[in-house]
């Protein structure tokens, strides 16, 4: 009779131990040391379009909602509350109301209120003309946002012009922190104030960026780390050697290329490395205003000449992903399955057959082995642009196109392409969130500032809006794939491949989950701890 309570107690203790072990294992303290690959342009996430700013500064801020930092995949179902405790849609799908967390303070001690949410989106939508952002690279994300209405200090409603389910994914990105009303845009570039787990301490250009634990962080017990210290090391060999020597707990995001990964894992066998898509695609740009590329047949011949697999094999030992516009499966949610992708112009498995067709087109236009089409292939003067451009030139030879590499100074690349001063070019495009609205509106909709080639097709625009309104994922995918087909047929920036690269960290770094379909959204570091 006395055994039963004893067994019960023992079971309780065992169960409690099992449940509590993970929590007890987490250690408070320590400085997380990470190297940074380059000189970050500024501290203002909203004004930049680079991982160089998002990765260090995401830890200073909170969003309304956030992609779960503990889950690998960014998807609507992995969105969790952040500054908003909860959210509700109205029946029309045009009013998204957030209940905001009370008691949250900015790092300078001022209270966070719904007004700050309003101010942030007023700046992003260009309504705040007094304290405007110097640049607003993701303005197109918010083109459907009519206004932000506030109700007291703890309720904010995003009023949309039409239903747009993707708005939550955009809000959950590392690119969408909430900024304080009371701090000017200029100050946010140099001395940012947030509500996040880490307070900004110092930003020495080209040297260090330092953050310390926010002791008044609204999430109890977080963050675990005392500080984060970023050290800028521009020379890749030096920083990789420093990581191997144990000087750093983590590499910069996606800094370890496929060829380097083998070296790192051999020299630092205990390091954990995750090879994942970077969200950056390499694509072909063709200027349809320049002869002979104003002829759709020539553009089609170009598409047919591409041998994506060979490029992928040469540049990444087969690790990059063959894809259309959207990030392909298995990591990507919206990309076409391979069997469907093969049906798009230029994606057929039989390259020789495609090239024979391309040659026939070119011959029909008067080109041949003795009369090649001379063209400059323009690209940015950076290795990751130049290398595929050289391969592209080689591939174009197979269809009587004699390409000459024209490397453009990196500072004027976008300006030159925007002014359409090119015929054929090779470009790289980064996408912040694996979401059709983000990718399609940014890069393919008429009038978007980031639509580099200024491709404009009203039918495609209509389809982009149609998929944007669609709440059902499966139905939406079908529309997205229809858009993919149109874009491939129009040769609107054909994607050659999506890159992959590795991020590595030392075994003492715990609690970090590397996201598999975006490099931009998992740098809050509030759940990360060090087991030194």
């Amino acid at each position, binding site marked *: 009779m006395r055994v039963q309570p004893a067994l019960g107690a023992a079971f309780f203790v065992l169960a409690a131990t099992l449940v509590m072990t993970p929590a007890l294992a987490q250690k408070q303290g320590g400085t997380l040391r990470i190297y940074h690959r380059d000189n970050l342009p500024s501290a203002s996430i909203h004004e930049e379009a680079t991982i160089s700013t998002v990765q260090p500064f995401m830890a200073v801020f909170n969003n309304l909602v956030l992609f779960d930092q503990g889950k690998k995949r960014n998807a609507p179902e992995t969105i969790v509350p952040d500054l908003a405790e909860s959210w509700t849609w109205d029946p029309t799908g045009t009013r998204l109301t957030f209940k905001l967390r009370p008691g949250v303070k900015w790092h300078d001690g001022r209270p966070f209120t719904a007004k700050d949410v309003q101010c942030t989106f007023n700046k992003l939508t260009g309504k705040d003309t007094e304290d405007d952002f110097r640049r607003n690279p993701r303005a197109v994300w918010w083109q459907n946002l009519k206004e932000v209405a506030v109700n007291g200090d703890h309720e904010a409603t995003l009023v949309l012009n039409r239903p747009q389910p993707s708005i939550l994914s955009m809000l959950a990105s590392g690119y969408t922190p909430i900024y304080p009303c009371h701090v000017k845009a200029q100050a946010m570039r140099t001395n940012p104030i947030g509500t996040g787990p880490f307070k900004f301490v110092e930003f020495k250009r080209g040297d260090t960026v330092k953050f310390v634990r926010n002791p008044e962080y609204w999430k109890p017990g977080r963050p675990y780390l005392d500080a984060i210290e970023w050290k800028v*090391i521009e020379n890749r*060999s030096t920083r990789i*050697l420093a990581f191997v020597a144990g000087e750093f707990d983590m590499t910069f995001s996606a800094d370890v290329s496929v060829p380097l990964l083998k070296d790192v894992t051999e020299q630092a066998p205990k390091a954990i490395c995750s090879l994942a898509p970077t969200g950056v695609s390499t694509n072909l740009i063709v200027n349809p205003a320049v002869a002979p590329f104003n002829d759709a047949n020539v553009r089609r011949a170009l598409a047919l000449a591409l041998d994506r697999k060979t490029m992928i094999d040469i540049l990444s030992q087969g690790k990059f992903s063959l894809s259309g516009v959207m990030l392909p499966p298995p990591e990507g949610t919206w990309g076409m399955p391979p069997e469907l992708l093969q049906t798009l112009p230029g994606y057929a498995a039989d390259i020789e057959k495609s090239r024979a067709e391309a040659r026939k087109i070119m011959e029909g236009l008067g080109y041949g082995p003795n009369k090649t089409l001379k063209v400059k292939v323009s690209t940015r003067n950076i290795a990751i642009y130049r290398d595929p451009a050289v391969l592209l030139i080689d591939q174009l030879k197979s269809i009587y196109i004699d390409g000459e590499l024209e490397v453009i100074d990196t500072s004027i690349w*976008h300006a030159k392409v925007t002014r359409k001063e090119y015929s054929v070019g090779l470009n790289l495009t980064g996408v912040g969130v694996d979401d059709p609205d983000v990718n399609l509106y940014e890069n393919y909709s008429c009038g978007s500032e980031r639509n580099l080639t200024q491709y404009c097709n009203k039918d495609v625009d209509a389809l982009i809006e149609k998929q944007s309104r669609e709440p059902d994922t499966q139905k939406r995918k079908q529309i997205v794939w229809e858009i993919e087909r149109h874009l491939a047929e129009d040769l609107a920036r054909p994607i050659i491949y999506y890159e992959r690269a590795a991020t590595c960290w030392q075994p003492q770094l715990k609690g970090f989950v590397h996201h598999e379909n975006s490099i931009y959204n998992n740098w809050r570091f509030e759940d990360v701890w060090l087991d030194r």
Partner: protein
Amino acid sequence: MGAYLIRRLLLMALTLFGMSVLIFVMLRLVPGNITDIIFDSAGFVNPAKKAAIERQLGLDQPIVTQYVSWIAGLARGDLGYAFVSEKPALDEILPRVPVTAKLAVLALLFSVLFGVPLGVISAVRQNTALDYALRVVSLSGLSLPSFWLGLLILMACVNWFGWIPIYRSTPGSFWSEVALLSIPAAAVGFRSSALVMRLTRSSMLEVLRQDYIRTARAKGASEPTVNYDHALRNAVLPVVTIIGIEAAFLIGGLIVTETVFNIPGVARFLVEAIRWRDYPIVQNLVMFIAVVVVVVNFIVDMTYVVLDPRIKFEE
């Protein structure tokens, strides 16, 4: 001497004026400006906002107005605001100067302390095994690029000691900083030391064949006295000249070394500022380097008088 000094100072001022014009014009001949780059890094161009930033930074002004404004600022000790960091340019430049200065001094010391004695030994032991060995060392110093040597040093340290001698944070004491900087200083100073060694050797060989050296030996002077007091003193003038020139060239080597060893000095910062077309930083830094070079050359010229009493500058 007084008239010579005044003439030299005036010439220095003229040189610096010429440099300032050259720097200013050349910088603006490079394609693109800061607004191109900040929009390029964001992956788009907004012409209206670009023009607004250009206005805000004064880049819409005529080039002459911009130049006058810069020089007037310099005269007041106002170096302007860095375009990228939006901080006073002086605040950005000043903390980096001592780091590079220490590295440069250490590199020069390395080149002199190794180059001169080894050059003397090589000359004195001409055509011996030691001479051949030193000549091989000096030739390798001239042919090894400093970035390659730097990387080799880093790889060796990581592989053999599991440690990397890069600049992570400001060292705690002066001596620990000297210790940390001595490795990159050796990497960058190796080339200069090789040059100094070869020049000292050839200069010494010429002097050692002079009559007065034979006379000194005949008078019973010891070999060290002959080699260092009589020969080296007379052979050192071309070496001093080359050290002066090397001091100017050093900045090129420092850019690479600061990058490889991740030292937050002015040389690496200058390259970064050029990449960003951060005019206030580039103009002022290049001007600062120009001043240093002009002053070093002046010091070298003055050193001739000390080293060789026969040299007198005409009144």
